[in-house]
């Protein structure tokens, strides 16, 4: 080739500029990135660079998690599978066996009294001491200290605390003991006080993490009551927020709509949903956004009888519909986009999502005496 470039020949990828190489490696799933670290020193350096790891985490797809029963009889166990909705496919993720899922944040998962990263199979106890983490509300990053912390609650033993009958606690991952987070907000109206009796309301769904706050949906079974508790993750303090003006008996679900707190509201979560968004955080005014009509006729093809349950799972208003043996994915216009079959009658769409991350954390550094085979691919 006179005057032309030398043939690439032996050079292969080795002569590509490093920024292109990183642009290629960043598109790989976490497991492939780990394998690439064994290719050569340059690739190891590129794929362990902290800026690369942050960018890699950000570009990972949001995985939706579904818990189902697998096997039969004595061999029955829970398995948690991940759905990649954009590609309409299941994605292999490994979890410690038997685990139930409590909270997730930045690719980290809280399972019982431990924290783990399914992408790196790292594992650590939440506390250095034996602590009972009862009802975990959320895992969050405390911005000023960059520590990961867990918010959880227990039913209060003090009957006098009728107005706020839950005790809340904050625990820094890897530290010794949780500490009490004072919640002095009056959670219930006077007229509901008697009906609610001594026990506090339950927390529904996963807390929505937005603008440094956790928005927590409170609900009391058998009583028509909705409340929103706001936990500021910087000051670690609580306040109360007014929910949208919907019938108290309706099904309410909070979600993040493109950086705005939104709520879906439905009578039965089967046919129709109305979406409200909080447009002014100071005056707490909710405004109606749009309506979703579910494709009933199509869903009936998967489930002839009985109820199904639909829930919004994305910022754009995509829904997951739980039917007998199926999870269906619809968009907000009511188009059925994909379907996933399960061996289980009632697969459960877990309210937490997962974005894989290879970012290193100090609490994983201490070697745990646990072999990685407890992570099983689902």
């Amino acid at each position, binding site marked *: 080739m006179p005057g032309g470039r030398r043939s690439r020949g032996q050079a292969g990828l080795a002569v590509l500029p490093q920024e292109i190489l990183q642009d290629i490696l960043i598109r790989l799933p976490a497991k492939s990135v780990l394998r690439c670290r064994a290719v*050569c020193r340059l690739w190891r350096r590129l794929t362990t660079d902290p800026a690369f790891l942050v960018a890699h985490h950000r570009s990972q797809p949001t995985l939706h998690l579904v818990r189902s029963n697998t096997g039969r009889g004595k061999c029955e166990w829970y398995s948690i599978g991940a759905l990649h909705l954009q590609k309409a496919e299941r994605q292999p993720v490994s979890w410690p066996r038997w685990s139930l899922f409590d909270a997730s944040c930045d690719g980290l998962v809280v399972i019982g009294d431990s924290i783990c990263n399914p992408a790196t199979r790292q594992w650590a106890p939440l506390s250095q001491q034996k602590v009972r983490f009862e009802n975990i509300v959320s895992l969050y990053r405390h911005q000023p200290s960059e520590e990961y912390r867990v918010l959880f609650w227990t039913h209060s033993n003090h009957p006098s605390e009728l107005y706020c009958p839950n005790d809340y606690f904050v625990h820094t991952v890897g530290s010794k003991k949780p500490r009490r987070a004072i919640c002095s907000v009056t959670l219930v109206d006077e007229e509901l006080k008697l009906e609610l009796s001594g026990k506090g309301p339950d927390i529904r769904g996963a807390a929505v993490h937005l603008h440094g706050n956790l928005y927590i949906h409170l609900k009391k079974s058998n009583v028509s009551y909705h409340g929103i508790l706001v936990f500021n993750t910087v000051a670690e303090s609580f306040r109360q927020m007014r929910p949208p003006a919907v019938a108290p008996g309706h099904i309410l679900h909070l979600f993040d709509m493109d950086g705005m707190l939104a709520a879906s509201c439905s009578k039965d979560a089967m046919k129709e949903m109305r979406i409200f968004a909080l447009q002014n955080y100071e005056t707490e005014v909710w405004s109606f956004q749009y309506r979703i009509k579910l494709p009933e006729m199509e869903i009936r093809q998967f489930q002839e009888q009985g109820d199904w349950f639909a829930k919004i799972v994305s910022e754009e208003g995509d829904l997951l519909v739980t039917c007998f043996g199926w999870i269906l994915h619809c968009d907000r216009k009511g188009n059925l986009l994909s379907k996933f079959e399960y061996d289980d009658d009632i697969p459960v769409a877990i309210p937490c999502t997962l974005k894989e991350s290879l970012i290193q954390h100090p609490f994983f550094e201490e070697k745990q005496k646990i072999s990685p085979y407890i992570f099983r691919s689902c």
Partner: protein
Amino acid sequence: MEVDKGKGEAEETRKVAEADRDTVTLKSSDGKLFEVSKEAAARLSTVLAGMIAGGSIDDNGTDLKQIGSEALENVVDYCNKHANSIPSAALISSSISFNTAPFKEPEEWERKFVDRLSHDALFDLVEAANFLGMERLLDVTCHKISEMMKGKSPDQIREVFNIKNDYTKEELEEIRQELAWAFYDD
């Protein structure tokens, strides 16, 4: 008759002038000339857009000394195909949901476009796209190369991409032990 002829000539000149405006000529490192739609070149390449806007386009062929003829042919081919392609219906409808998608998936014709390339041609094209500031083509080529790495062992990756293993045996053993599970397929 005279009038008509004059009109015809004027039309000819106008056509030539229009053709001049519509395309730019690019010259590869080995001296081959390629013509590409000016609109597509300006839209798809920040570097070519800058040259067109700055008037540094040479009518006899703008020198691109960094790019060989095979890669430049692919670049031009890509630009021309892009100029003719209408976004597919799938792409329009999918933009409603998941607008937060990290990387845009290549379209069907883009996938076919890179699938037919040899490894060397693909690597040359990714470099040319980088040099010319062609974000979309860089996206498509990087996507293709990453697809080629998925599911492969480190040994296979080294072989496919011609990479020298510069680890010592001990270092490699250490990495293998640390990440043993990652080397098995699910």
